[in-house]
């Protein structure tokens, strides 16, 4: 691993896009109707393309010797920097919508900040991504509203999905390794904590408008993924989201994460089976060309 903290930054965004793109692609052929097969397949295609652009950027900037295929498919699980949220299985439609809504709103806050990065080539790629991500956020918000306002079963499934995903969505903004250097160089224009509070404030308002803000007050577990034999150790069970509080009418983060560790390669038990499938062809046929 190169010592330049820009590598961890690029890989955090790229690996999020690759891994959630892989999960989205698992809906192909299985979504509730054909329009959603197309929607999730298209979003997956965009996300994987964004990962590819960023891997190419990392190599062009001399941050790594590995080409885009080797970065996407040739690393060991502990070398991936994606947030744990992105690797979770799709579950039901409620969880998939909740996760896409939380991830893509978080991603848009992060990309808006990176668009003014002092690293010009990164800002250029991010601007290309943002034009396409608009459609992802639109898709997620559309389904969020439909399920939130729909019959009780869909609304309940959305609420369950949000409750399950919200803590790990907060951890999308887990601080990056050597973040202070990224900030002082202007590569990362705002701290992860600052971006987290912008996102949480906005999402909190949208959840309140849908009378779903109770998901911010009910949560399953707290702790960090640790690389033990089983790969995953859950912390204690709690019933408030770690570090999330409402102050003066605004939802804010005050420290603590659930499902953190992804940015340092610590993943859940769900990651390895997905990684095995995603990388199988590459590992079975080294050097194969498409």
């Amino acid at each position, binding site marked *: 691993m190169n010592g330049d903290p820009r590598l961890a930054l690029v890989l955090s965004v790229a690996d999020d896009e690759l891994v959630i793109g892989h999960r989205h692609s698992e809906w192909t052929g299985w979504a509730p109707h054909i329009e959603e097969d197309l929607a999730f397949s298209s979003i997956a295609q*965009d996300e994987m*393309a964004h990962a590819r652009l960023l891997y190419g950027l990392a190599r062009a900037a001399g941050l790594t010797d590995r080409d885009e295929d080797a970065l996407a498919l040739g690393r060991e699980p502990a070398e991936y920097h994606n947030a744990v949220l992105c690797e979770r299985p799709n579950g039901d439609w409620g969880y998939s919508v909740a996760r896409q809504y939380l991830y893509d709103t978080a991603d848009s806050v992060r990309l808006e900040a990176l668009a003014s990065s002092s690293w010009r080539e990164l800002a*250029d790629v991010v601007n*290309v991504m943002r*034009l*396409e991500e608009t459609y992802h956020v639109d*898709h997620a918000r*559309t389904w969020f509203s439909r399920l939130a306002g729909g019959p009780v079963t869909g609304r309940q499934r959305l609420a369950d999905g949000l409750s399950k995903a919200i803590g790990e969505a907060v951890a999308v903004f887990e601080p990056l390794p050597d973040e202070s250097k990224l900030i002082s160089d202007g590569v990362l224009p705002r701290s992860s904590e600052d971006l987290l509070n912008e996102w949480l404030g906005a999402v909190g308002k949208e959840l309140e408008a849908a009378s779903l803000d109770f998901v911010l007050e009910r949560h399953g577990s707290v702790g960090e993924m640790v690389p033990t034999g089983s790969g995953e150790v859950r912390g204690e069970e709690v019933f408030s989201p770690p570090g999330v509080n409402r102050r003066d009418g605004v939802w804010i983060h005050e420290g603590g994460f659930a499902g953190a560790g992804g940015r340092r390669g610590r993943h859940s038990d769900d990651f390895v089976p997905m990684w095995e499938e995603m990388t199988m062809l590459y590992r079975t046929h080294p050097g194969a060309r498409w």
Partner: protein
Amino acid sequence: MVSRVEVASDVERRVWDALAGVHDPEIPPCTITDLGIVERVHVTTDAVEVDLLPTFSGCPALDVIREDAESAVRRAVPEHDVRVRFVYSPPWTSDRITANGQEALRSHGLTPPGQGATRVVIPLASLAPGTTGATCPFCGSSDTVLESAFGPTLCRSTHFCRSCRNPFEAFKPKTLA
């Protein structure tokens, strides 16, 4: 005697002519210059560099377009080293599609994204009923509904015309505005 500038501009003209003959493999009536993806042609004494802008970054036709463009330019200026690559600044937007390109899309049964006030609108609530601003490429009616902001390729949305009862596709607007 021919000056170096004249030679360069002749080469440049041949390169642009060659690029104007390269078609999008997924929308055959449309050329890459119609789509506005040729950003820059740079000619030196012995080399030609062409910068292209990707339409949608995950479009699988991009590699084909790059290779087709490279061989077309090589044929046009065989005495030069040719390099064709994609660049990411400025971002491509659908406002770069020329009037010819809009017509070529329509001839292929695709509603063009339009520009400014005529732009196809993909409403924020994509599943909500209502008009989309897309004109039916078959009958010209604007009494149409959006089926989905996604379609058979990354650059297309799917619609239904309530006048002639045909499903149709539109080239998705991609814009900074």
